[in-house]
């Protein structure tokens, strides 16, 4: 029964996608929109074929994936322990709250001038843009996930003689992990939004570079292809992430 309903939903999704692409193609082919402003899907596809043949599309995608993943993993590695620590300590939360509030609204692009001064035009500078773009929001997710643990559970564990470390290992971590993972999935998408900023300076490959360079030459099909590739890559990574989530959190299945 569930399989039936799932395949029905899948069929509806496919049908809506096909209808959307057909309408888009028709609108462009009938001349309602100039290709400079919106090229038809067939033109984007032909650009994709050309760029796959010369290997550019794969190398752009791999370069951006590497930058996003390195920046995102580094940011998660710092944000997870720090967020759990802050989420479980009112004192340190009060200490760091103003700083987090200052960092939180800053767009990744605002870090470009400073990152260039500190790190130069290196790959590390590009990782740092993704890092800074995703760190503060990840940290907030993790703090909230940690805070959401029922205090009754913590008190009960303490009454049963659990040490601070035990409470952390046996109550807070397993309790907050599903929310942390859910937050990180959202953050991975946000990390991808930093790629344009990351590849704005001194890049010669990457999907962000491809989009910006396409814009300079009015190759709207290249711009749209870059955007589609970002979406596809995020979807693929999301599937991988879900599999990892199932292994890590078997009790949430």
């Amino acid at each position: 029964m569930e399989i039936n309903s799932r395949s029905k939903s899948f069929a509806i999704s496919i049908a809506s996608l096909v209808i959307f692409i057909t309408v888009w193609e028709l609108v462009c082919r009938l001349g309602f929109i100039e290709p400079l402003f919106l090229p038809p899907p067939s033109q984007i596809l032909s650009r994709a074929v050309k760029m796959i043949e010369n290997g550019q599309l794969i190398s752009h995608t791999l370069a951006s994936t590497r930058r996003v993943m390195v920046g995102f993993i580094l940011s998660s590695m710092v944000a997870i322990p720090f967020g759990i620590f802050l989420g479980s300590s009112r004192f340190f939360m009060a200490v760091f709250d103003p700083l987090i509030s200052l960092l939180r609204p800053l767009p990744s692009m605002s870090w470009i001038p400073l990152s260039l001064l500190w790190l130069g035009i290196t790959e590390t500078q590009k990782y740092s843009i993704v890092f800074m773009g995703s760190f503060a929001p990840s940290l907030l997710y993790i703090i909230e996930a940690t805070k959401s643990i029922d205090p009754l559970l913590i008190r009960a564990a303490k009454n049963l003689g659990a040490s601070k470390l035990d409470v952390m290992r046996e109550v807070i971590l397993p309790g907050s992990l599903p929310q942390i993972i859910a937050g990180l999935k959202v953050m991975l998408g946000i990390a991808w939004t930093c790629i344009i900023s990351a590849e704005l300076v001194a890049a010669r490959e990457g999907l962000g570079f491809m989009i910006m360079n396409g814009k300079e030459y009015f190759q709207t099909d290249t711009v749209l292809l870059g955007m589609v590739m970002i979406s596809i890559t995020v979807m693929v990574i999301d599937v991988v992430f879900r599999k990892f989530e199932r292994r890590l959190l078997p009790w949430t299945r």
Partner: protein
Amino acid sequence: MKRLMKKSLALVAAVVLAFSLVCAHADETPEKVTVIYGGSSWLGHYPAWVGIEKGLFQKHGLGVLFQNFYASSGRMGSLVAGDLDIASTGSISGIALMAAGSKGFMAFGTPDSYATVEGIIARENIKTIQDLKGKRIAAPFASSAHVLVLDILEQNGLDPEKDLTLLNLKVNEMPAAMHSGEIDACAAWTPHFNKLLKMPGHHLLVDDTEFSLYKKYKLGPGPDLLVVRKEFAQKYPKTSKAFVKGYFEAVDMLINEPEECAKVLMKLTNLSMEDQMEVLKDITWITGEEQRALMVDPGDFVAGMQQLAQFLVKHNQIDHAPAVKEWIAEDMVP
């Protein structure tokens, strides 16, 4: 009787003359009194700025609104989207837009030549182009400086993909990158070009005069183009004409009174008077009269632009070379 006749004739002649003068003036009155111009602090926009500040457009009954854009691509995008009426652009952007099939604009002039204030600057240990092998060189991609690098490397048998690392960097980021040693050479234009040359241990490797099309057609790697939205030019021919008049009067002023112009340009560029004058002295302005000889087909400028388009195709920057002459408006400059 004879005297009366003479008086009457003189009166009629005076009336006819006055009427024709009024008509002539009325004939030149712009249909639309405001023009939205797309510019930046780049030298190609100096005439428009001087024209506004010195009231030269106003003299022709026009108010010109100067809209700032950082890059030519953004400016050209806005022009064809209908947000701008007239603009000046780097020709790489212009050709790219032609290649993209946009018929919404026309090129009607090329106001300047700056061949000696754009070039490749390198560290002292790099004496020749061959010495760039294995080095890191920066250029702002999709710009005249990028085209210059590609051409110079080609002339010297170097492959930008294999023989060296070519990085995409904005000109304002180059002095810091050169200073920190992250790049060994860079292609830049004025005023950053002048700044880089003044840095100790740096020297000019080549300038635009070494560009292959400059040698053949006196055409730089990305000459500035004056462009107008086609619909605007067709709908408001008198307004366009008034703009062109005011614009080339400003060009004449830049030639004859550079110091006066520098004073008003400092507001646009934020340069000191000394730096502003230094930039001005290296520009060759092309007057209205000279435009008429340039913007014709067949002619060296149009032929050079066509070769430039083919060069961009050869280096995989655009998909195909547009027939540039189809975008040239020969009759815009009176």
